[in-house]
């Protein structure tokens, strides 16, 4: 007879708040305003391209006051704030600030995690006895001061302190900009009672609907919901149990995810692209995907192509190969095999290339086959030349046209390829 498992029941975590979340809100916009004093106090929007339909990746606080939000097109932002100024992203500038932030954080604890370009976590566990004896609020204000000293007086950051990463991030978003808040067992209920469900990181439209469907309308109700309800009915997975722990201040987010795919995508610059244009863009995407693979010391066995058409229809195809690949030519050759099978008759709007089935690189292993060795040596030599004299000093003629159009831009979230991005900037 199967034994019934008892439902998880945990009190609020009474452990001291030792996790600090630091968030440079409106990071790119603030850095631009720091770099160019004439932009201070003005609404500005940072976009990856200087076109009307470009997406706003960061907006200054002056722009946010007027209703400009990250993700909207610049055209829509211009309607809300007619005096808004559009600035193109400048990765080396943000990387400089990122490095300063990392150095500041590392001076307090070796246990730091950068969650993205503009936010990171310091875990003070184990450092309180000998190094960081002062209260964490004092350290928080010192970090704010050091950021202003080392980058410039316009820099601001939000700091949240809590027993786990989720609550620390929630605390960091309570008083923007330039806030510092603590959430622990003593004020958790009070703070959650003032928030909406969508104020919680990880709860957007769909999760809100899931919670609403089970009669949960506020974060406080979410906190009071039993683990069993969250696991079996709301999320119908182990995620429910994670949420139960997360809201109570227990750490469930301290895992590292490995790289599963490496790829690139591009929204075509031409509304009616010719065959030649498509192949040029594909060649460029394959070349940069292969560079990323080698940068991470990986090789792939699978390739995936995704196309989005003007009608809104999408097409994709994937294939796993017996042998691994890593060179620009091999990625392009294998991608072309799939690309040639695409449906025709409509204009392609967006294309993406991804490599999967990743394995550690075998470039160092000399092969019995001379042709394989020649490919490795050629790739290594081209990479060395490009590293010495700048990216795309030696490149494929087929992708030459695309290079003047497609530029590598700041990605959301990950900082995995930041160094690589800078070499190309």
């Amino acid at each position, binding site marked *: 007879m199967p034994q019934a498992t008892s439902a998880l029941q945990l009190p609020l975590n009474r452990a001291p708040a030792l996790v600090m979340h630091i968030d440079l809100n409106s990071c790119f916009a603030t850095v631009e305003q720091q*770099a160019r004093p004439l932009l201070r*106090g003005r609404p500005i929007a940072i976009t990856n391209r200087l076109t009307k339909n470009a997406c706003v990746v960061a907006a200054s606080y002056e722009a946010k006051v007027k209703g400009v939000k990250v993700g909207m097109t610049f055209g829509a932002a211009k309607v809300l704030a007619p005096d808004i100024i559009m*600035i193109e992203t400048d990765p080396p500038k943000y990387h400089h600030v990122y490095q300063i932030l990392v150095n500041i954080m590392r001076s307090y604890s070796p246990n730091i995690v950068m969650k993205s370009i503009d936010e990171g976590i310091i875990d003070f566990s184990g450092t309180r006895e000998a190094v960081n004896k002062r209260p964490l609020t004092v350290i928080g204000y010192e970090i704010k001061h050091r950021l202003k000293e080392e980058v410039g007086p316009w820099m601001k950051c939000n700091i949240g302190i809590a027993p786990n990463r989720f609550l620390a991030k929630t605390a960091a978003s309570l008083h923007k900009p330039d806030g510092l808040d603590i959430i622990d067992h003593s004020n958790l209920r009070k703070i959650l009672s003032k928030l909406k469900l969508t104020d919680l990181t990880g709860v957007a439209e769909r999760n809100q609907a899931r919670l609403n469907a089970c009669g949960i309308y506020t974060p406080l109700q979410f906190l009071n919901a039993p683990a069993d309800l969250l696991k079996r009915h709301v999320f119908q997975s182990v995620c429910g149990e994670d949420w139960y722990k997360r809201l109570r201040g227990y750490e469930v987010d301290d895992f590292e995810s490995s790289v599963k795919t490496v790829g690139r995508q591009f929204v075509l610059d031409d509304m009616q692209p010719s065959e030649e244009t498509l192949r040029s863009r594909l060649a460029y995407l394959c070349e940069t995907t292969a560079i990323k693979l080698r940068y991470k010391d990986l090789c792939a066995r699978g390739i995936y192509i995704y196309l989005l058409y003007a009608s809104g229809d999408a097409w994709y195809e994937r294939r796993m190969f017996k042998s691994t690949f890593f060179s620009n030519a091999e990625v392009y050759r294998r991608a072309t095999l799939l690309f040639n099978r695409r449906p025709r008759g409509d204009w392609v709007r967006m294309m993406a290339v991804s490599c999967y089935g990743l394995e550690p690189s075998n470039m160092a292993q000399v092969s019995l086959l001379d042709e394989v060795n020649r490919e490795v040596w050629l790739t290594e030599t081209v990479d060395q030349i490009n590293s010495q004299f700048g990216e795309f000093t030696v490149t494929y003629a087929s992708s030459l046209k695309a290079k003047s159009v497609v530029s590598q831009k700041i990605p959301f979230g990950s900082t995995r390829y930041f160094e690589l991005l800078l070499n190309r900037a």
Partner: protein
Amino acid sequence: MENVVAINKDVNIVAYYFKRGTKRLRCFPKKMEWDGKNVIFTEQGLRHPTKKGQRMIHVFDMTDGSADYRLEFDAQALTWTLVYIADQAFSPMDPQYAASNLSAAATA
């Protein structure tokens, strides 16, 4: 769109000033000769390093109070390049946003 004029020409920096950083003294351009004009910088925005191949380039964002200037110093060739001038269409900088006033507000 903002008003940005690309220049990309070598310029002479004829005066420098030094500022105490957190670890060592930092050097910034003070006076620039360009196109027969003298530009005196009143404030630095950000100095950040970048690379062109293996060459180290130091980028300086400076302002003279009425326009922003982007200067690049090639640490290998020891040359200064004026990359662009921006924001000439705007009114002069509001004094409340000057670094000296921001620092004063922060310490108050």
